[in-house]
């Protein structure tokens, strides 16, 4: 019998990205300061994050070249001074609606990037000395360079967390979806790409937990799609938590037996638990319930 079988935390994309609420950003930052060495990043989270950042970067760069540059040319603006802030302000205002149409709805990343660039432009323009001018080409090149820097800064946290190369089994993923979506809503319309991505992240954590036979806590700030389903996910042996409480769950789990032993010693199983154990057994190729009984 062994206790203290906790592997650590699997992080959701939102934990490592900037958050619009300051309190939430602080909660993530405090948690990561304390626990980053115990954190893991699944392949699906990494891919989602990098795609999100890259897509937002691309939309803005292409718009700088294909919209802002022609706009300057059409208005015969060849140089900018510290008095031309209004022109740029109008462009950024329009960009927000363009980005809203083009980017993924549930992400804050495009606005974060645009906000950082807008701030950079405003500060840079205002700090130009009176009477000095910057050519449009140099101005746009500076913006594009700053965009590359912002993109790199956003990606950096994802590169400092231990990666776990895992493609979750389809059956595990299906069981996760079954736990998250009520039975009467399981038609294709409700299986949004966001839900499928969440299912990938959660299934990766669950599968890894049983392969290692060590508990995993899935850390997320996503109330709407994940934390609201926490009881259902806990039922199938995946603990989810907000960053604020993740270390408390961790401490509790160090007093718990390993996942396989814990399941073996359970007296009753729900239908859903029987099903997930069956799926996990097939996926990892070893018995759980009968193993020690």
């Amino acid at each position, binding site marked *: 019998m062994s206790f203290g079988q906790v592997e650590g935390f699997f992080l959701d994309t939102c934990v490592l990205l900037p958050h619009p609420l300051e309190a939430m950003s602080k909660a993530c930052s405090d948690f990561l300061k304390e626990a*980053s060495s115990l954190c893991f990043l699944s392949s699906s989270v990494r891919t989602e994050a990098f795609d999100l950042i890259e897509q937002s970067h*691309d939309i803005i760069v292409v718009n700088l070249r294909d919209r802002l540059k022609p706009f300057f040319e059409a208005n015969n603006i060849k140089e900018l001074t510290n008095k031309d802030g209004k022109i740029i302000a109008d462009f950024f205002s329009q960009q927000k609606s363009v980005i809203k149409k083009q980017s993924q709805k549930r992400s804050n990343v495009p606005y974060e990037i645009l906000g950082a660039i807008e701030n950079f432009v405003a500060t*840079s323009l205002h700090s130009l000395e009176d009477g000095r001018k910057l050519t449009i080409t140099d101005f746009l090149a*500076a913006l*594009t*360079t700053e965009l*590359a820097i912002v993109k790199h800064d956003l990606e950096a*946290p994802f590169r400092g967390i231990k990666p776990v190369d895992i493609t979750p089994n389809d059956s595990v993923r299906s069981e996760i979806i079954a736990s998250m979506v009520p039975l009467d809503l399981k038609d294709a319309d409700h299986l949004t790409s966001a839900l499928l991505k969440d299912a990938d992240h959660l299934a990766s954590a669950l599968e890894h937990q049983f392969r290692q036979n060590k508990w995993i806590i899935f850390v997320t700030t996503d109330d709407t799609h994940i934390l609201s389903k926490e009881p259902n996910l806990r039922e199938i042996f995946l603990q989810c938590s907000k960053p604020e409480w993740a270390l408390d769950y961790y401490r509790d789990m160090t007093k718990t037996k390993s996942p396989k032993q814990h399941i073996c010693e359970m007296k009753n199983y729900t239908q859903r638990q029987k099903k997930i154990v069956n799926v996990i057994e097939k996926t990892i190729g070893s018995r759980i319930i009968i193993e020690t009984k």
Partner: protein
Amino acid sequence: MLSLSNSRNFDKPEIIRSTMVFPQRFEITDAPISEALKDYKTAIEETVKANLDLLDELPPPNTFHIEELKEFLKKAVEDDLRRDLVFEKSVELHKYMKDMWTSVDSYFQEVFDHHVNLKNQVDTDIFSISRMFLNSDLPISFLKAIENSLVAEKDYIDIYDKRIRRERLELLVNRNNRRKFERICDTHNRWIAPFTSRLENLDRTRVKMIWYVDFNNSDKIENIFKDKMIKSSRINMQILQKFIDDLEKLTHEIDGLVEANMEFHPFTSREDTDSTRTVRRIMDLLSLKAEG
């Protein structure tokens, strides 16, 4: 290549600079002379040759005779290197490195300062390539492949700098113990080995791709390395895609090596980084006094 504080020249040619290839090995007194370039003149000759050799790896340009291009490139590279203070410092450091045994402390101070200049230079390179992209109809994958490769180099400089700050202390402590000193050098050289050829290939592939686009979009040989409109119709997009794929593959390999050595830093809020300050300085240097 010129450091920001010393130049306003942002039309510098994209060339390979063999003495600046990272990472540097640690050598002690009896290191083979071929490991480090002998002197500044030799460094320039070898770098010019390396660039001319790289030209042979490109598909022949559509617009110029190859001999004419070689002659132009030879002069452009020579002229640029002679103006390039970072290159000159790089050569000096290679010479210094051979004598590291007796001058550990001053050597490292020079190296750390050099890293700051190199990172500034990478930001300047991103600025130059952004300008090229904005005057083009090239796909965004061209810009990103180059940006990502440059950022990978910068990340490498960061982890290398952190590592040798630790190693410097060990070397200083063991400067009177030749055997331990050598062991630290060996460990360092083993650590850098996987990076060496990859970083060199990365540099070569990036420069080849930029040359391919630039040369075939220059009507006259004098327009090479100058601002101009870049049209994708003047190049073979399949060849460009191959360059992009090769560069991405190499960047991915280096990213993997770098990430294994990276420390975690959470993203909190955007504040001015050294890079942002560099971009602001570029803007400042490029701004012109208004007429009247």
